């Protein structure tokens, strides 16, 4: 059950764990944008070292970051190969029709490779150090301005948090239903694609029915506890901005300055 948890969050109390999740999300996205400005060895070295530093600060074993990169490895290799064979420039070692192996292509491929690894490592860092609850809380908080255009931000936030809360419940139920179907001789994970899809239907239907029951009961329970969509509520869970968050913004500003200093004029 825990293997399938969204985002593979690893609890901890490192500086990165303790960051304001809103700040963390915004800075990670900003960082990804910034990486695209790196265009030479020095600027790549700068963002690369910064990533390494951030990873070390999480005090999470490197193997977990590798597991984040692993599923994307084919995508990375594919992109790198395209870069190698479709970029021309500098010294051309070999050419055939549209394909060519050139010095510029090799250099570009290296850059692309580093860029992808850095981006994936940083996104993995975000999900490893931020609980789904904090991510949903941060996203709701970041969506607050949308209230101005009448987006029901609070309702969306509550929906998100209830959905997350029911993930383990529905997961347990899926396992139970699958076991019940297995006991009746249904075979999962073998046979043709059509057969496999057919085997999923008897899981989905009871799961859907059960989800509807949960929803109906939950509706009563929430109303009984005074929940109404048309009334304001106060908030128990608040996200706090600390000095360390201001400092991390400063660190990213410094990083930006260095990247723009060392990149090609």
């Amino acid at each position, binding site marked *: 059950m825990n293997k399938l948890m969204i985002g593979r969050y690893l609890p901890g109390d490192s500086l990165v764990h303790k960051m304001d999740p809103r700040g963390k999300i915004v800075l990670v996205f900003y960082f990804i944008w910034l990486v695209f400005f790196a265009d030479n060895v020095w600027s790549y070295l700068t963002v690369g070292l910064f990533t390494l530093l951030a990873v070390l600060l999480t005090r999470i074993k490197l193997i977990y970051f590798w597991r984040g990169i692993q599923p994307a490895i084919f995508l990375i290799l594919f992109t790198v190969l395209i870069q190698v064979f479709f970029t021309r420039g500098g010294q051309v070692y070999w050419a055939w029709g549209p394909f060519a192996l050139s010095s510029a292509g090799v250099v570009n491929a290296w850059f692309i490779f580093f860029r992808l690894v850095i981006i994936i490592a940083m996104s993995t860092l975000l999900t490893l150090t931020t609980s789904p*609850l904090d991510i949903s809380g941060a996203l709701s908080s970041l969506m607050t301005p949308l209230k101005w255009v009448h987006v029901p931000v609070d309702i969306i936030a509550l929906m998100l*948090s*209830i959905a*997350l*809360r029911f993930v*383990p*419940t529905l997961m347990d139920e899926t396992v139970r239903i699958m076991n019940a179907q297995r006991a009746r001789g249904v075979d999962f994970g073998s046979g043709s694609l059509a057969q496999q899809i057919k085997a999923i239907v008897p899981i989905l239907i009871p799961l859907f029915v059960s989800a509807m*029951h*949960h929803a109906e*009961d*939950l509706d*009563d*329970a*929430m*109303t*009984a*506890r*005074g*929940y*109404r969509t048309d*009334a*304001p*509520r*106060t*908030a*128990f*869970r*608040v996200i706090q901005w600390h000095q360390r968050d201001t400092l991390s913004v400063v660190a990213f500003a410094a990083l930006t300055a260095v990247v723009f200093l060392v990149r090609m004029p």
Partner: protein
Amino acid sequence: MTEEAPIITMENVTVRYAEQEQPALDGISLTIPAHSWTALIGHNGSGKSTLIKALDGLVTIDGGTMTVAGLTVNEENIWQIRRRLGVVFQNPENQFVGATVADDVAFGLENAQVPRPAMVDRVAAALEQVGMTAYAEREPAHLSGGQKQRVAIAGILALAPDIIALDEATSMLDPEGRASVLRTIRTLKAQENLTILSVTHDLEEAAAADHVIVIDNGHLVASGTPPEIFAQGAALIDMGLSVPFTEQLKTDLEAGGITLPAGYLNEEEMAAQLWKLYSTM
């Protein structure tokens, strides 16, 4: 016990669900005294849950009037009533709204727009009362059914209600969880001067109540103290209920020609009677 003013009244209440021939509640009238423990019994589908939901405005009634804590149950009062009457439902899973224990206890307070500093104190106090302080940061997936039900009770307590209604709140729990939840409720009832309305199949629990109300097929068929109700042994069996162990024993003894004093006997009284019989044999 001394009779207190009624805290819940129902006058000829009828509830009919859409597309159902039989009404789920058919002209029910009853009163529940303040600070009492009332057990509501009846077989499945007899309308017990519907009765609780009607009181809390979760189903609309098709006839009759009701009052809860001095307020007439209507659209205008319902949100106030929901703060006076807390409901613990049957399935522990389906009433846990918050992402963690503390968040869940805070849910009702957020709805009542309690400011955060007061909320923090009240959540802590309510968790303390149900003995769940150590679990404040836990997620529901890591709690037992009994623990979830105690969290549900804390969520209600935080709103300082007058009445707690339990709709088979312990029926999905293991014996240990059931005992701990009932113990919690008993302690709280005394501490907070609560009125308890408990739908139950546990006749031991019913036997310990101040009042027992029996409903069958949407009708109120009996209402009285546990001795009065359980003295009707055979009639209860007709209504699809089981009788407490002592009552069963009494019926069997009587079939064997041994007569015991009329009226319901609890286990202690039954033991005393048996000793008396044994020593006179």
